[in-house]
Each structure stands twice: as C-alpha cells, then as structure tokens.
C-alpha cells in the first residue's frame, strides 16, 4: 500500500507541463481527429510561411523595376507551350514574375488582414467591454454608435475615405501610405462586429458571482474588465477573429480591385487580379486567375479553420 500513496502524492505535486496539458486537451484531440482542420491548418501555415519568407523564396523582387524586362511581358506559365522556365507562373503585363509577385501579394494581403483585425479587435474589445460592464447611458451611446457604423457598408465607408484621401493628397502620397490607410479604414469600418459580440458575452459574465467577488475584494473596474471578464469571453473573440480576417482580406482585395487599394507598383492579391483583368480577353488569363485561386484558397482555409474553432469552443452546438 505505501507505493500507492507515494504515486498519489507524486500526482498531486507533479503537474503536467503546459505542452503536456495541451497534448491532453480537448482542443488538440478534436484537431487531430478532424481531417478538414488538419488540411486547412497545413495550407494556412504554408501561406503564412510563404508570405513570411517571401524575400527568400521569390526568385525576383517584384518591387524592383530593374529586375524585370518588358520583353518578358505576358509570358504564360511554364506548362504552357510558350512558357519560359525562368517564370514558373508566367509574367504580367510589365514582365514581372507572377510567382514572386503572388508571394509578395499574399504577404501584403495577410498583413493587411491581420493588422486590420487587430485594430478592429482592439477598438471592439474596449468599446464592448465598457458598454457591457458599465451599462446604462454609456452602453446606449456606444451601441448606437456601433449601429450607425454598421448601417454603412464597409466598402462604402472605405471607398469614400480612400477616394477623398486620394483626391485631397494626390496619388503620389497615397502610394506611400496605402498600406497603413487600408489597415485603418478596414479596421475602423468593422469594429462593431467585435463590440457587439463582446458586449453580449460581458452581459452574461457580469452577472456571475466571480465578478461580484472581484468587486468585493476591492479591485478597480479596469482590472475587473480586462483581467477577469475579458479572458472569459475569449472563445467568441477567437471565432469572430477568423471570420473577420477572411473578411478583411476580401475587403482589401475588393478595394484593390476597384483601384482604391494597394497601388500596382506594390500589388496585393486584389490589385494583381485587377491588373490582369485588362488582359484577360487578350488570352493572358494567368495574370488574373492564378492570384484569384491564391486568394480564394487563403480565404477558404481561414474560414474552414474558423468553423472548426467555433465547433470546438462551443460544445453545445449540435453537429450532425
């Protein structure tokens, strides 16, 4: 019998490491057993790695005009008859290597998507927490503000702001500031999604006794909101974040397609698609179609991951 007590005590004193705890978790288990999740995550990881290491992978630098030649313009991908083996996916109208340009474009798209969502999340979390926690007039004011913001479509707000900016400060300055401008515009246009979700969760959490207990200890409102309530609302935040990243990438692509996003000299996936659109009837389909596939793939895997995450984090959801 003494051995049993020793092992029992050892079990109490020895806690599994974070990694072990993760390996034993429901989260990891449901990931392991879900093929769609594994495939989506792998593809997503490839996208992220490709965009992170774009300068290393890409054979040429698409931002450097000296590296491409107009003579190489509109060459089809290698598997086509007229393909050139220097250009894996062909070239665009200016003779840029499509493979390199897509790598850099994916990098821009992911960066804009993630940064815009971080901005959305920041604004939405602050507003949602304050509205849910303080309630009353603050709540009404902030939520009406969100309603007003939501009543304009994201694209409309973005188009107006970006068009005014371009008109007021000229295309030169706009080219330099396109990236931060897009992040800010997409970020500001969609914060109400976060604010509403978080407010709803906060309203539910605020009624729980641990919040009373925290107030009884004498903690301040900020500490209770950010340290006690916010971590308890993380699962909806994670789920909408994936949806919002996909949305932000699409918004950026749409704006770029409309000529209000990234300039042709620093193309994102959206502006690549747009620049190829003019040549699609001259037979150069690859300039539009290949970045299009890259974009659809990226948005699809992010959405699939989001779906999976929602199922895992919300076990009450029936999944037949």
């Amino acid at each position, binding site marked *: 019998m003494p051995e049993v007590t020793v092992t029992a005590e050892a079990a*109490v*004193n020895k*806690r599994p490491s974070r990694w072990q705890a993760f390996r034993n978790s429901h989260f990891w288990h449901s990931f392991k057993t879900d093929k769609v999740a594994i495939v989506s995550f792998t593809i997503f990881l490839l996208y992220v790695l490709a965009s992170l290491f774009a300068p290393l992978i890409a054979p040429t630098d698409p931002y450097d005009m000296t590296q491409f030649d107009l003579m190489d313009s509109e060459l089809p991908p290698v598997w086509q008859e007229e393909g050139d083996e220097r250009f894996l996916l062909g070239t665009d109208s200016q003779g840029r290597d499509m493979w390199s340009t897509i790598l850099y474009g994916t990098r821009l798209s992911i960066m804009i998507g993630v940064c815009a969502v971080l901005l959305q999340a920041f604004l939405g979390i602050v507003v949602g927490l304050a509205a849910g926690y303080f*309630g*009353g007039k603050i709540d009404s004011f902030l939520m009406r503000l969100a309603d007003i913001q939501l009543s304009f479509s994201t694209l409309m707000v973005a188009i107006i702001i970006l068009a005014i900016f371009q008109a007021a400060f000229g295309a030169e300055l706009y080219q330099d500031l396109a990236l931060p401008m897009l992040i800010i515009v997409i970020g500001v246009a969609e914060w109400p999604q976060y604010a509403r979700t978080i407010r709803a969760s906060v309203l539910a959490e605020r009624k*729980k*006794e*641990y919040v*009373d*207990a*925290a*107030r*009884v*200890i*004498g*903690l*301040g409102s900020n*500490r209770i909101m950010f*340290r*006690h309530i916010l*971590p*308890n609302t*993380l699962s909806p935040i994670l789920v909408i974040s994936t949806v919002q990243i996909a949305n932000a990438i699409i918004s950026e692509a749409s704006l770029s397609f409309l000529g209000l996003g990234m300039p042709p000299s620093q193309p994102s996936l959206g502006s690549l698609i747009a620049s190829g659109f003019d040549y699609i009837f001259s037979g150069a389909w690859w300039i539009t179609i290949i970045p299009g596939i890259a974009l659809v793939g990226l948005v699809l895997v992010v959405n699939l991951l989001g779906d999976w995450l929602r199922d895992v984090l919300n076990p009450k959801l029936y999944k037949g």
Partner: protein
Amino acid sequence: MALLEVKNLQVKFGLRTGEVSALRDVSFTLERGQRLGIVGESGAGKSVAGFAIINLISRPGYIASGEVLFDGKDLTSLTAEQMRYIRGNRISMIFQDPMMTLNPVLSIGEQMMESVLTHTSKSKAEAREIALEKLRLVQIPSPETRLEQYPHELSGGMRQRIIIAIALLLDPDIIIADEPTTALDVTIQAEVMDLLLALCKNQNLGLILITHDLGVVSQVTEQTIVMYAGRIIEQAQTKAIINDAQHPYTRGLISALPHQGAAGQRLYQIPGSMPLPSSLPSGCAFHPRCEHAQSRCQQHMPPLTENEKGKAACFLVDQRTSHP
C-alpha cells in the same frame, strides 16, 4: 464605539413599475470579534443588507437613507476610491456558491495575490508568502501546489476554503459570509463552519453570517437578527432566539426545523409565503400569515421595541410585557 454600526438603513430599488423598498429601517451594531447572524426566508433582504454594508448595491438599487458607520466613518458617504480601500482590506465577503465565486480562467495563486497587490505595496514574492500562509490557516493540504491550480481542479469544499483564505488575506476586521455553506454537502458544511468559527475566535474577527439555516446560526453566532420583508422583526442573543423566540414568525421558523417533530409526523410550515417587496401588506408585513393577527396588525406597523429578552416588532410582545 462599536466597530460597525448600521443606523436606519433604507435600500430601495427603482424599478420601472415604481420604487420598491428592499431594506426598511435596519439598524444593528457589531463589536470587534462579535459574531452576528442574519436569518430570514428568501427575499427577506438578508443579502441586500450584506451588500449595503460594503456599498455594493448594484443598479437599480441604491441606499436611500441611513448610515453605515465603520470605525466611526460613514461608508455610504465615501468616494468609490475610498470604498475600494475598505473592501477586501477591512471588510471581506464570502459568497454562497464556491463554484461561481472563483474566476475559472485565473489560477488560485493569481486570484489570491491580486488582492494583496491591489491593496498593499508588497512585492509579488511577499504576496505569494501571504497567500501560502492563509492557505495553511484554512488547512489546505500542499498549498504550494494549489497556487498553481485552477478552480475546476478543486472540490467544492476546497474552493470554499480558498475563498475564505482570500477573504482573510489582508486580515480584515469583519467578514460578511452570505450563505457560505448552502452549496456544500452536509459534512463539508460542518467543516467549513467550524473553520470559520475557529478563525473568528483566533483572529478576533467580526462575523456577519447571512443564512436561512437556523441550525448554523445557533452553532456559530452570539447575536441573531431575524428579518422579514426587509425589516428586522426580532433581534436577541442567539440562545434566546432559539429557546424562547418572541415573534410569531421566528417561532414559526423554529418549529419548522425538522428535528422539532417526531418521525412520521408532518413538519410544521408557516402558511403562505413572503410578500413581494412591491406589494407589501399594510401594517405588520407578517399579519396575513400570522395566526395571532389582530385588527390593529392590519393597520399599524408594530415598532421594534426592546424588552428584557431582546428586541421584537410585534404587538403581541408589547401586550405580554405591558400586561404581565
């Protein structure tokens, strides 16, 4: 001077349908090291009284009038910042459900140290030491391990001990325990109550025990207040209340305890139920349920009068004392 003196406290809730009184003219005192029980049915205003003391009535409720004097200072007039200093530091509170009171996403250690770090300028290491010391005080085995654990890894009794340890962290003067054992099973209840009693005696803590369980009150407290529909209707030494209650309502409560009847017999029950604070009966709020009700009970509210046994708010008691 008493450590805590509640004077004529009124708490109202501003509802859409109008104002509703949850506490009506509640007064009592608590000396250092004294243990006071507040008893009553659900809805009697017990918990509201507890929250009112630390000025944490949440909207739409508010303290309409009255004073809560703690160490001579009126807590109802303090600013939010000054009040935060009192809460947790000088007056702590323990809640009913240990499953809900601890934050599920923070470790025990974080939740304990947080309280120390908020109120004092101690370092993290010192805060950890204090947390460990208090965990030992509430007899938690292997406290170092517990600090790393999360609430879901612990049993209900263990969690309630931890909550008591959190309440004790800064050596408060008063602990308000709002039904601290209701959510626990009977054996754990007794353990937790014994622990609380021992702590109060050793640390000279004032305890306000809010409960509907007269058995618990009789074991732990010295003084008992019986509340009905937001009013104190009887207040006396706990022994006097248990053995010789004056108010018909208190007597009803005591005869409703299971061990009062013989096996196989129906338990006594007070007919009817507590009126809603929005539709209080005229006169004495208890008169529709009282078997001794007289006509004047319907018109006049009996005042809380003092006699040799304690205080009671009933015309019956007045009669007995004035016409012996």
